[in-house]
C-alpha cells in the first residue's frame, strides 16, 4: 500500500498518478513492493542479488515503470537491474529514484542498470532523481548504466537530476554497434554544498553508428560539478558531445570532454561551454514583465528542459 509520501515521490520522479499503465515494479526502502508483468514484458526478481530482470519479447511494444523510492534515514539501498529489450521491440521505460530522508543519517541509493537493446529495437529511457528531507540527512544517488545497442537499434536516454540530491556519482557506459543510434540528454541542477560527478563513456563500434550526447547543467550556491564525457570510435561512426553549464554564485564547474578515434572514417565533435546567464536574456524576459528572479528561474528551467 502506497502512502501519501510514496505517491508524492512517485509523482515527482515518474509523473505517476496512481498505478502505472503497462508493466511496472515499484521498489521502496530496499524491497520490491508492487509488480506487474505483462505478456511479452516479464519482470522477475533476481535470486542472487537485489534487483530485477526485465525481459521484453521480440517486437513487443509498451511501457515499463521501475521507480525506486527511499523514505528512511540510515539506509543504503543497492540494486542491480538487467533489462533485455528484444529485437524489433519498441519500449518506453521510466526509472528514477526519489528520496525523502526524514532524519539526520544518510539515505543512499546505488542503482546499477545493465541494458541490452537488441537488433532493430527502439528504447526510450527516462531516469529522474530527486531528494528532499527536513533534518539535514544526506541524500545520495549513484546510478550506473551499462548499455549495449545492437545493429540498427535506437536508444534515447534522458537522465535528469532535479533538486535535492546532496551527492551523486553518475556513470554511464554505452557501446553502439553498426547502424545503431544513441541519443543521450543529461540535465543536472545542484545547489548549496551539493556535488555531482558524471562520467560518460560511449564507444561507437561499427559503420554508421551514431551518438549524440547533450549535457546541460546549472550549478548554484557553492555546489561543485565535474563532467567527463568521453566519446570513442573504434569504427567509422559519427558522434557529437555538447556540454553546457550555467554557473552561478560561488559554484565550481569542471568539464573535461574527450574524443578518441582509431578509425580514419570516424567523425567526432565536442563542444563545452561554462558561463553565467546572459544579461540580454534576463533583460528580454524582464521586458515581458517578469521580475529578475522569475526571469532567472524561467531561463534555468528552459535550459534544463
Amino acid at each position, binding site marked *: 500500500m502506497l502512502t501519501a509520501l510514496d505517491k508524492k515521490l512517485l509523482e515527482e520522479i515518474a509523473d505517476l498518478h496512481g498505478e502505472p499503465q503497462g508493466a511496472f515494479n515499484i521498489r521502496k526502502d530496499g524491497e520490491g513492493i508492487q509488480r506487474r508483468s505483462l505478456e511479452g514484458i516479464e519482470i522477475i526478481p533476481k535470486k542472487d542479488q537485489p534487483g530485477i530482470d526485465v525481459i521484453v519479447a521480440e517486437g513487443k511494444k509498451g511501457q515499463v515503470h521501475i521507480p525506486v523510492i527511499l523514505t528512511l534515514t540510515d539506509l543504503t539501498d543497492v540494486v542491480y537491474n538487467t533489462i533485455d529489450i528484444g529485437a524489433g521491440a519498441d519500449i518506453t521505460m521510466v526509472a528514477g529514484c526519489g528520496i525523502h530522508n526524514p532524519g539526520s543519517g544518510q539515505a543512499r541509493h546505488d542503482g546499477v542498470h545493465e541494458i541490452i537493446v537488441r537488433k532493430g529495437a527502439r528504447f526510450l529511457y527516462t531516469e529522474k532523481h530527486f531528494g528532499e528531507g527536513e533534518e539535514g540527512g544526506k541524500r545520495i544517488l549513484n546510478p550506473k548504466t551499462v548499455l549495449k545497442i545492437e545493429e540498427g537499434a535506437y536508444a534515447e536516454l534522458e537522465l535528469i537530476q532535479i533538486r535535492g540530491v546532496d551527492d551523486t556519482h553518475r556513470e554511464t557506459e554505452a557501446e553502439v554497434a553498426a547502424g545503431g543510434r544513441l541519443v543521450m540528454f543529461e540535465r543536472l541542477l545542484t545547489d548549496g554544498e551539493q556535488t555531482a560527478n558524471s562520467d560518460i563513456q560511449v564507444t561507437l563500434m561499427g559503420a554508421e553508428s551514431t551518438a549524440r550526447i547533450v549535457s*546541460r547543467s546549472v550549478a548554484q550556491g557553492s555546489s561543485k560539478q565535474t563532467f567527463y564525457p568521453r566519446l570513442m570510435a573504434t569504427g567509422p561512426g559519427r558522434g557529437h558531445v555538447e556540454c553546457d553549464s550555467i554557473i552561478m554564485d560561488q559554484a565550481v564547474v569542471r568539464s573535461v570532454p574527450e574524443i578518441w578515434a582509431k578509425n580514419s572514417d570516424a567523425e567526432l565533435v565536442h563542444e563545452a561551454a561554462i558561463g553565467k546567464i*546572459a544579461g540580454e536574456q534576463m533583460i528580454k*524576459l524582464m*521586458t515581458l*514583465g517578469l521580475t529578475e528572479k522569475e526571469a532567472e528561474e524561467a531561463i534555468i528551467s*528552459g*535550459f*534544463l528542459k
Partner: protein
Amino acid sequence: MLTLEKVNLDLEVEEQKVSILQDIDITFEAGKMYALTGPNGSGKSSLARVVMGIYHPTKGKVYLEGEDITDLSITERARRGIGYTFQQPARFKGMQVKDLINIASGDNSSRKCSLLHHIGLCPDEYKERTLDDSLSGGEMKRIEIAILLAQNPRIRIFDEPEAGIDLWSFEQLIEVIKNSHNEKSVTVIISHQEKILNMVDEIALIEEGRISMRGGHDDIWPLIKESAECACRKTCPWEEESYADCPR
C-alpha cells in the same frame, strides 16, 4: 501618452564618460505612429532603452500618462504597458517560441498559432522551435514581433524591425505593425526604411544624441533627405583617388 523631458544619458565606455543623449524633449501621443531615424550610433536605440528602463537617464524625466516612471525598473514598466522589440533579439538555449509567447501574454495563450501565422511563420513548424542559433536573424526578428503582439502593450517600440528580414516579409511586417496599431496605442519605430517612414504620423531625426528635426512626415521628410547628403569626402586621403558616388 509618453513624455521624455530633458533626458540626458551618459554611459561609461572604456572607462570614459560618453554623452549618448542630450536634452531629449519629446512626447508620444496615443493613437499616433512615430519614427525615430538618424545615422548609426546617433542614440536612437539608447533612447528606446531609456523608455524601457534598460538605461536610466543621467538627467531628466520619463512620464507615462503623467506618472513619473524615471526610477521604475524594466519589469514595472513592462507591467505598465511598455513593450520593446530588440534590434538583436536574445537567443535562449532550451526555451521555445511558445514559452516566450506564453510569458508575454501572461497565460497559456491560445493565440500562439495565429500570432505566428500573422507574421508569416508556419505555426506547426515554429511554435516548438528553440530560440537558439538554429534560427536565422530574420526568423528571430519575426518571432520577436510575434512576442510583442502577444504582450499587446500600449507603448510599442520596434527597434529596426526590418533588419535581416527579406523583402517579401518586410511588406508583410509593415502591414502587421500598421494593422495592430490602434487609437489607444503609441507605436514608435526606429528605422531607416523609407516605406516605414512613409507610414508614420511623425518623424524625429536624431543626430549625435539630439533631436535635430521633428515634425509631420510631409513637412520633415524632404528636409531629412536633404540633410542626408553625403558628408563623406570624395577623395581618398592616401591614394588621391576620387570617387563619383557616396559610398553610403
